């Protein structure tokens, strides 16, 4: 299932909103630089820069990839780490 809207119509409708969001992000990064102190080594800043790279690449599913970037990893062995045994084996 796809969007019923033409790409031109999506851009026409959302350009100003997208422009505003990019501008807000740019201003936030400027604000960080102007502020006293240093957060260069803060892992959150690194994640934000990685997310910005995701927005700039040509691959699809950017929203999902950004979500995963900001997510704690999942390991299939979590139940044994918690010493929780499945009630019924699959």
């Amino acid at each position, binding site marked *: 299932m796809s*969007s019923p809207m033409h790409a031109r119509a999506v851009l026409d409708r959302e350009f100003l909103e997208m422009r505003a969001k990019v501008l807000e992000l740019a201003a936030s990064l400027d604000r960080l630089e102007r502020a006293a102190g240093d957060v260069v080594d803060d892992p959150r800043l690194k994640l934000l820069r990685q997310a910005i790279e995701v927005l700039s690449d040509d691959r699809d599913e950017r929203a999902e990839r950004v979500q995963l970037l900001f997510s704690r990893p*999942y390991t299939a062995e979590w139940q044994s780490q918690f010493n929780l045994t499945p009630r019924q084996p699959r």
Partner: protein
Amino acid sequence: MYYIDPHIHMVSRTTDDYETLAKMGCVAMSEPAFWAGFDRGSVESFRDYFRQLTEFEPKRAAQYGIQHFTWLCINAKEAENVELSREVIAMIPEFLDRPNVLGIGEIGLNKNTRNEATIFLEHVELAVKFEQQILIHTPHLEDKYQGTRMILDMLCDNSNIDRSRVLVDHVEEHTVRHVLDEGFWAGMTLYPVTKCTPQRAADIVEMCGPERLMVNSAGDWGPSKPTAVPDFILEMRRRGHAESLIRRIVYDNPLTFFRQSRSFNYQPPVWDEPAEV
């Protein structure tokens, strides 16, 4: 367009909100038990809360022509108190035959801890024992992906669970396919900042299709918007989607899911019947 909000916490909302929702087309809602903003101290607090959900809220909603249904549990945020959680789980059956109780919920994980997982599994056992439907909360922000996968592991390990009777809520772009691919229902929560916006929920419908998918406001005492479902309807219309598709997500799908509960005695609005010619 008439719609059903499958997840909203009306104990935290004013009567004015009921009136507004009715004016916007809300004809039914389901209210899962959740965290009050503070940890409750005793099982009696929960007994009073369950009375509010099963006695007072249905009457308040009915004043505006809205049918109110509910789900019972102790929320994952309070599951670190395992002793209290077990007392609450033992008390829940007192309320399962109340006329507006649809099942057990919203159970789930919060910080994905061992105690949360233990209490989640005990809630699931309760639901299976009493043949109840299940409504599931998935964690917030950075904990969502890991917690959702853990929840799906626990559900899929139990062959006694009918997946068509389980709704996994608060899905987003990185979790929705995992939920749908395992055969569960998925709910998208429309929040102003966290979770989904109406625009992103519409994107997910376009990417995944309408099968076993719903939207809700999860309106509560925090930043939230009880009229978020009409916002989603408007967004879908602005994109040119068919009314039948929109109605499927906001009305038909919740009906299909809820009708699996023996307590779902839903009366469609009388004005919904075809007019005589």
